[in-house]
């Protein structure tokens, strides 16, 4: 079991927009790899390279200390590539606050202990406002209390119960527990008729 995560606090980088897909988070050409090690630099690569005169938030010096990403609705939709949350972690982030997450992205993030916390649109807007006013503002994500706090502002955050528990007690990597249940697994397998069918 890994160490639990009960809170994440730090500076934030705002990445505006809804439906930010995994092809944008890590373009497909960076999937040509057999380890995740070098993915930090691939994070939002095409958006960053094509951002023109205004730097992409990830290249904006004001947010260089950020450890939390704040974004809109349905973050991480699209492909199942775990390369996406891996790149987020390897670029130095420990949490994402968004209005909602695509399911596979949230599951992949949980597996590696990256916190995905949902907030209402109004909270997301308030966070954007406060970050714009003070890019160095410290935001605190409290998983035990399900609250986000930023310099006097406080609002609820949502995580699926199982994800919250898994993060808090460090069981987000379930492999040890899955391995321990081999007898129960064998019983389920034994009852499935199709495993005994022979093919032609």
């Amino acid at each position, binding site marked *: 079991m890994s160490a639990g995560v009960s809170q994440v606090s730090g500076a934030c980088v705002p990445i505006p*927009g*809804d*439906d930010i*897909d995994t*092809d*944008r988070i890590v*373009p*497909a*050409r960076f*999937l*040509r*790899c*057999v*380890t*995740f090690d070098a993915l930090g630099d691939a994070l939002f690569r*095409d958006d960053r*390279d*094509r951002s023109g005169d205004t730097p992409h938030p990830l290249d904006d010096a004001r947010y260089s200390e950020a450890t939390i990403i704040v974004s809109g*609705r*349905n973050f991480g*939709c*699209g*492909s*199942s*590539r*775990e390369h996406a949350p*891996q790149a987020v972690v390897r670029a130095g982030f420990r949490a994402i606050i968004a209005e*909602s997450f*695509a*399911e*596979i992205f949230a*599951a*992949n993030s949980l*597996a*590696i202990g990256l916190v995905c916390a949902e907030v209402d649109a109004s909270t997301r807007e308030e966070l954007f406002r406060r970050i714009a006013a003070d890019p160095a503002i410290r935001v605190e994500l409290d998983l035990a209390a399900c609250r986000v706090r930023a310099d006097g502002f406080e609002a609820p955050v949502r995580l*699926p*119960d*199982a*994800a919250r*528990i*898994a993060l808090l007690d460090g*069981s*987000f990597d*379930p*492999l040890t*527990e*899955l*391995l321990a*249940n081999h007898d*129960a*697994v064998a019983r*389920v*397998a034994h*009852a499935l*008729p*199709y*495993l005994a*069918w022979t*093919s*032609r």
Partner: protein
Amino acid sequence: MSGTLFEKVWALHRVGTLADGRDQLFVGLHLVHEVTSPQAFAALRERDIAVARPDRTFATVDHIVPTTDRHRPLRDDLAEEMLAALQANTAAAGIPLFDEQTHRQGIVHVIGPELGLTLPGMVICCGDSHTATHGAFGAIAFGIGTSQVRDVLATQTLAIEPLRVRRIWLEGELREGVFAKDVALHVIRTLGVHGGVGFAYEFAGPAVDAMDMEARMTLCNMSIEGGARVGYCNPDETTFAYLAGRPYAPSAGDWDAAVAWWRSVASDADATFDDEVRLDVSALAPVVTWGINPAQAVAVDESVPTKGTGAAIDEALAHMQLAGGAPILGTPVDVAFIGSCTNGRLSDLEAAAEVIRGRTVHPRVTAIVVPGSQQVDAAAREKGLDAVFRAAGFDWRLPGCSMCLGMNPDRLVGDQVCASSSNRNFKGRQGSPSGRTLLMSPAMVAAAAIAGAVVDVSATGGPT
């Protein structure tokens, strides 16, 4: 027991509840490919854990393979490294690998069904979001990330929470020139790209009953584009007829028992659903995407939205370089791509071939056909389809994912516009950051290739 297919199949595969409240679910079939597996195999090696059920695990290579020259070593060093890693990992674990030499290589979601590996009532996983394709057979099939690929390799199980079930009831008969792809895009534009988050989609109703298996696969394939991780159809006579005689399908001695069990897992008539949506598809026209997510779509006789009606719309119009409010009909295209796990099967190639027979690809257009698998390729050649495409000016390539995501050399260049039978029109999806994708059915892609622009294949019976 009365319930939905989802509830029944989930219950049969549920091992127990984990400490954090998630279910431990047994996986009946695990499909593996080169992109999302190397790190999972490495993690097992690190912890000295063996693959639990190599007999329930099957691998293929699809995403990175070139579609022209496949001599080893592959010219792209990184692609070669990934293929070599897959070969070494599967050989060491005793996992069958359908590579080129087996003549069964192809896109993972094409070969599972055609080999009869995909069966009703299974839980099926793959490190790929389009795994829902297999749901066409009445399986619970879903995409997973690499950490979960590791978990399944190590234990044949994974930690997951159940989904709610939304039945999407489809009525009416599709018009000539309108296909399952159009239905899929219509569902997504109706319910939105995140409308399905938290749901499994059960596709049912007369329009689904009338579909053949390949059409059902197209429909289920795109569930994830509407946010639903799982999409499925109930197994029926069409399903059983498709499976009979497939290499890994049950043998004659087990067949009757298999069919009886498959029938038993279908949703019961009195099953209750968490949500229900009814759509009549009888008036549906071909659907074309105009934007940068699959819900940004219009019927081919409609116009794209006007500028200033939303930030997401403006961003999409700007990327696509489209004038707001313009008809989608007549939009010029530079590239035509027929292939992918959505529409790279024999019936897709047949529908496209019907449109182009005796015609010639527009001089501006680069047109390629990439069969979904070696078996699709062989079956198409047997019917002379390769000759039809070649005569029209299409390039006929070797099977793989190809330009669906541009991980191999097949990519858009600059801001080319591609009429594509694939499933994603995200920015940069087809290999060029400024490339532009218009999703549509294979017949519509074929018609666009001939006309050099978006045309309505249903109205004209093809371009003239």
